[in-house]
């Protein structure tokens, strides 16, 4: 029996973590989220519980690579062949999933490899999809991402950068789409993340345990109530969970209509400049995140509050860090930059 997960909507506080995850669900193009924080702060619980509120999406019926029928430019070889033959790709509505990449995963299972059974039976080589195929169009979750083997990290980075998984191994040569929301959780005490991987995450959050007595009591009480009777507790949260999924779905529909005026663009650029961040990735990510935030709020125009809500998520892991000091986010500086709007 599937073990019930603690309901997302019942997680107390941790607003930044929740926001970072929700924004990614509204716009997977934001580039995922890295959740850093001290142990026991519901990092994994929160990510896993996303399964309850993930929206539905279109996929090609029966396709093991979870191809998106609305994107003929991003099809797996099988779907592409079908299309070329003039066959129709039958769309199917499925709920997005949380695909977990276990730390112990080996390369062959992550990238995919030769299908032994098929080749023995038919003598033909066939590709057996791996985790990166399952992850396409879904959310890929890596717990303890900082402990992941370097060669597995390399595989992730390649796919995350190109949206395609290229396999050249054991006589198999194959490629398939692999676009996913990458979510990693880690405890920085166990070692830092490789900078290349750090860069890949669109947003990052530092999670801390609540020091407020009442909040803490609430956290503990809810957890104890859940543990006592998971089924009953989950049922109690059902309406709220459905509402949350609805909200995300609506925001996804609204997202293409969200517009930004020039003052917002200027504000974003001035923020990244004054925080000393090189490259354009931060600008683009902040724009996307701000738009997603507006959509989540049911608006089609981006305002100051959207930028306030996402700036730290976008910038904190991109700022130059000083040794052993917590990267303090300068909110005053942010406000100065926002004055121009």
């Amino acid at each position, binding site marked *: *029996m599937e*073990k019930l997960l603690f309901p997302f909507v019942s997680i107390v506080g941790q607003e930044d973590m929740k926001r970072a995850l929700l924004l990614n669900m509204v716009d997977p193009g934001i580039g995922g989220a890295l959740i850093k924080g*001290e*142990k*026991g*702060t*519901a990092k994994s619980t929160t990510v896993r519980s996303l399964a309850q509120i993930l929206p539905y999406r279109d996929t090609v019926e029966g396709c093991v690579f979870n191809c998106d029928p609305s994107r003929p430019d991003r099809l797996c070889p099988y779907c592409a062949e079908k299309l070329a033959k003039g066959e129709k790709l039958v769309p199917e509505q499925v709920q997005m999933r949380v695909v*977990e*990449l*276990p*730390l*112990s*995963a*080996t*390369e*062959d*299972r*992550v990238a995919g*490899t*030769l299908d*032994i*059974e098929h*080749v*023995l*039976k038919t*003598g033909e*080589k066939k590709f*057996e999809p*791996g*985790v990166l195929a399952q992850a396409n169009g879904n959310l890929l979750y890596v*717990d*303890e991402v900082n*402990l992941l*083997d*370097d*060669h597995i990290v390399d595989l992730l980075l390649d796919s995350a950068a190109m949206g395609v998984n290229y396999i050249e191994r*054991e*006589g198999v040569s194959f490629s398939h789409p692999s676009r996913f929301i990458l979510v990693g959780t880690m*405890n920085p*005490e*166990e*070692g*830092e993340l*490789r*900078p*290349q991987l750090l860069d890949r995450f669109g947003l990052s959050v530092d999670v801390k*345990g609540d*020091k407020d*007595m009442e909040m*803490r*009591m609430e*956290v*503990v*009480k809810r*957890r*104890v109530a859940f*543990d006592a009777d998971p089924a009953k507790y989950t049922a109690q949260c059902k309406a709220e969970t459905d509402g949350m999924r609805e909200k995300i779905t609506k925001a996804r529909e609204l997202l293409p209509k969200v517009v930004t005026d020039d003052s917002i663009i200027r504000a974003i650029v001035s923020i990244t400049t004054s925080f000393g961040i090189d490259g354009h990735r931060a600008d683009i990510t902040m724009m996307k995140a701000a738009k997603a935030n507006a959509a989540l709020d049911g608006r089609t125009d981006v305002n100051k509050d959207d930028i306030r809500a996402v700036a730290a998520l976008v910038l904190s892991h991109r700022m130059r860090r*000083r*040794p*052993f000091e917590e990267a303090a986010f300068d909110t005053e500086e942010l406000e100065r930059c926002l004055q121009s709007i």
Partner: protein
Amino acid sequence: MPPVDLRSFPFSAVLGMEDAKRAMQCMLVNPNIRTVMIRGGQGSAKTVLARSVGRICGKNIINVPVNVSEEQLFGGMDIDATIKEGKAVMQPGLLSRADGNIVYVDDVNLMDQRILMSLLNSVIEGRVVLEREGVSAEYTVDTMLIATMNPNDSDVSSHVLDRFDLCAYAAFPQEDDRKAEILRRNMDFQKDPASFVSLYKEEEDQLISNIVRAQKILPLVAMSDDLMGVSVELAMKVLVDGYRGDICMINTAKALAALNGRDEVMKKDVEEAAMLCLAHRRNYVQEPPPQPPEPPEEEEEDDQDEEPPEDQDQQDQQEPEPPEDQDNQQQEPPPESPDMDFQQLLDDMVFEIGEQFRVVDYLNDGPRKVSKTSAKKGRRMMVESSDSSGRYARSRVPVDKTHDIAFDATVRAAAPFQKGRDHEGLTINIQKQDIREKVREMRAGCTILFLVDASGSLGVRKRMTAVKGAVLSMLRDSYVKRDRIGMMAFRRDSAELVLPPTRSVEYSYRKLEEMPTGGKTPLAQALITVNEYMTSYSRSHVGEMCYIVIITDGRANVALSEGANANEEVLKLAEDMVIPQVKWIVIDASAGFIRFDNAEKLARALEGTYFRLEDLNADRLAESVKAVIR
């Protein structure tokens, strides 16, 4: 119940260890408690107790050896079945046998940390997700974990420790009476296990029925908001990270109430629960400041405190302050000599940490190279393992004969050629050229021990501030590279291990910040201490490259033997020093225009590399090189 088990000692015949026994019973009663750790020195019967728990719950104890591979533990490819059936068939791992039973790991601190983390996650979540060796599977496993370790060895990280719901400290009994009784029981058991076991049968049966009753009561146990508040407050007081401690305490308090036949949690349940749930999660910040610069009066008090309150009924304790981490490291501190100079004590100063900077690659290169790609260096953590230890990372065509066949890759290599091969009734015909071997990687890393001169001579002109800045810069560098780092400081007449090698550095910053300066320079003694420590360390960390970084001005002034020249003594010692797998680096911290060459001589005697403190700063070094070129 299984038939009478004569191999394991009766649970109730284990003397003492009340905390550990209580912890295990709580785990058996409350399914939300899944993991228990027992910490204790050698001979504290922690292993005996862990094995005996099977007797009182009718479960099997699945022993997981510390050197278990991921395939063995979680599952991998079943060679026989794969050949017969012609498709990848999974071979279940040890964990699948643990379903409905108890997993037991002895010396858990010696286990590969990543495997341990995966094991803990599987136990806590009740499922195993497998993506290995051509096998993709997910199975549920309803199990519990008991782990034991000796805290005198290297410790597990606080991150891992937090995953243990409960942690009990088992102390070796000091009283002769108790020791004698333990010996007696042991001899009786060995002489005639059957009658010894039957002697305790009644007690065991009672325990069993008490646990069964508690399991039934548990869902009915109520806990008042007040007491929940007390739990949360206690957790906050000792600054635990996250919420696991709080939640665990409530689960444990409920289990304790149920074990006592009550359907309501009482204050003493919470207090007992705190001992089991918070002690190992408590944050170091609460610890009293480090011992060395304390006046002797206080030390006497400390000694009294250290008398372990083992026999006292813990129920009597009103204030459930969790026990101090009484690791033996602390129980046998290098004794401060009683005739120490009080004036010097008063003179002790604590310097702030100075400027930090990007450091040159001081471990690998001479002083003239600047490391630009510090990120890449993180990779030195992984080395290819030459034997069959380590984790299976990928496969390759073997160069020579191999004993470590990567079966999944071999079958895949053979598969395309099956049509043309004679099968002789088998599904797959594997030939020599198909064989692939496993490439295994070990996380054999690198340990860096900083031996810091904290003597008075470095207090001059705030030199210590610069030293601390440099040490912190180097610590930071190692942190990024995921090395293990430790710190030893020497002054007055001894060297003290301030920070045992660890990969977690949250603690090191504080230690460095608090490190006092003052007193003489016992360099020779420091060399002897570090030699002893690192010799045993390198023995227990085979394959690990170790560096000892000495930061000193090299001006020794405490001789080992009376009347000897301290500096000559140091050089002579240094020349004789041979520690396996150890490289020495001497960083000259002397300041001023007149530079003494003591540190340089020391480096030469140790056959180590020599740096001046200033040359560690990568940016400044680059500048000075540029200036020379111009």
